[in-house]
């Protein structure tokens, strides 16, 4: 996967899990994570046009404020829905924990970046380097620094999901030998 992502921005200040996908849709599709179904309802509670515009290619990056995906629910439907309509990156001031983990685990890059909300307008084109965390607003010329994604997280993005990445690692090494340098206690 390309570590540099470029695209137009859709922006919204406060996005909860129930905004990404409504509770109704999530409950109707409890055990059915079908991207085609979920994608149609992406962000519908706060932007009815979101899915059609994203699929048309109007934007592919989400910029948001604090606690993106908040609301304390662990379901993964929202991430699937965003990927389904072609969202390739979410940049926010901060993320809710479940949402941050679900995004990375399902192969959707997320960058946490102080000051992003005021530095970018809807429709701006930005360029983000996942491995350095440098984000450039190509429209305004502003540059910001986000927390970069380390090598193995980029590997997860490349593989498409955390499980796919681990499966491949296990297959390659042929053992379950850990590859981090942590000391055992």
């Amino acid at each position, binding site marked *: 996967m390309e570590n540099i992502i470029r695209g137009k921005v859709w922006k919204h200040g406060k996005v909860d899990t129930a905004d990404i996908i409504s509770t109704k849709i999530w409950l109707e599709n409890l055990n059915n994570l079908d991207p085609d179904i979920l994608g149609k309802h992406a962000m519908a509670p706060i932007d009815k046009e979101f899915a059609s515009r994203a699929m048309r290619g109007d934007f592919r990056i989400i910029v948001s404020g604090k606690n993106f995906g908040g609301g304390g629910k662990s379901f993964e439907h929202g991430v699937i829905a965003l990927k389904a309509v072609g969202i390739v990156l979410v940049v926010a001031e901060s993320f809710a924990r479940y949402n941050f983990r679900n995004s990375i685990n399902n192969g959707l890059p997320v960058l946490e970046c102080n000051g992003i909300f005021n530095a970018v307008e809807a429709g701006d084109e930005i360029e983000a380097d996942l491995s350095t965390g440098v984000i450039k607003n190509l429209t305004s010329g502003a540059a910001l620094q986000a927390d970069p994604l380390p090598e193995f997280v980029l590997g997860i993005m490349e593989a498409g999901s955390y499980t796919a990445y681990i499966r491949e690692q296990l297959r390659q090494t042929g053992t379950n030998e850990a590859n981090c340098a*942590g000391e055992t206690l």
Partner: protein
Amino acid sequence: MPGMTMTEKILAGASGKKIVRPGEIVNARVNALMMTDLKGPYVFKVLEEELGTSKIRDGLDVVFVLDHLGPAHDIKSAQQFKACREAARKYGLPHFYDLGRQGIGHQVMCEDGYVFPGTVVAGIDSHSTTYGALGAVSFGISPTEGAIILATGELWLKVPETTRFTVTGNLPRRVSGKDIFLHIIGMTKWNGEVLYKAVEFTGPAISALSVSDRMAMCNMVAEMGAKNGIIAPDDKTAEYLAGWPEKRYDAVLSDPDAVYSHEYAVDVSSLSPRVSVPHRIDDVRPVEDVAGRKIDQAFLGSCTNGRLEDLMIAAEILKGRKVHPDVRLIVVPASRKIYLEAVRNGTIEILAEAGAAVLTPNCAACAGIGSGNIASGEVCISSTNRNFEGRMGAKDSEIYLASPATVAASAVEGVIADPRKY
């Protein structure tokens, strides 16, 4: 270069780094994994079908506990237990806790020597934050992440910022760690400055708390949306862990110049018992304000407050008294060890004598899927950690959260009562 908080230091050690900073993502070694009857079989399914392996990483303590569903009360739970036992047998899990030998997973983790200061411990349950009371970094994860830990002994983690609560003052009689926590969440709210962060409790009032009360506090940081709760290990921690002399550990402490995202000072010297009222955990009132509210059930148990000390405080209040005739008091020791101790020291006898219904260790009514649920319109005062709508049964029932002392005093009076009278 500023210092690091204990959470940062522990995550640095676990990922083989000298320094980590908040926001950084690390791949950390996990020392122990807790799973329960609810998700256990599914975790092994992910391991086999999605990760393509049936080998568990060496050196990882896998603790599998049957706790949420209690003794099987219908065919569905009986089937679930059967699936758990089959998985435990297939994998030859040495730390499988079946009925009669078990307890609530979080309690078992702490009292049976799976959690030590400086370690990283994960659990497939939100209240895995409990183990931070022993100076570990611990948190809840999804079943899929549990399967990844089984296979690799590792998990990616974002290093959280730390918010520090410095708690001072002598805690008044009959006021406990639970009351301190309820006071703090009433003050900061669920959506406060601790979302996805580490919450560090420190100060003389925390040092004065028992390990049991510290566990109640770290247990409930899950209700603040925090990643983990943590308390620096001290002599009390060492004494608590003395039963496992073979397990050597390093006490990891925060550097004096560590950087905190937020700091709060809390003085508890005039704190009164607190009650969290339906249906929000962060809607907290002094007991004086809600005293007199009629109750139907009092529940004493759970991973928050079902420990020996909790049962003993209740027994102190109930000794020579009776549970109010219009109320049923349900008591559930959090583990078999606690149950045995409480039988041996006479606590269970006092409670049963007073009219309490004592159950075998399990989650019971806490999550509304075991025994002791409440009916439509009923009110329960509970020592548990969540009072969401319908958590303990009927959707239009009400749950008030309080300390074991307040639960016991209320059981006596039939209404929410101030335990300081007893």
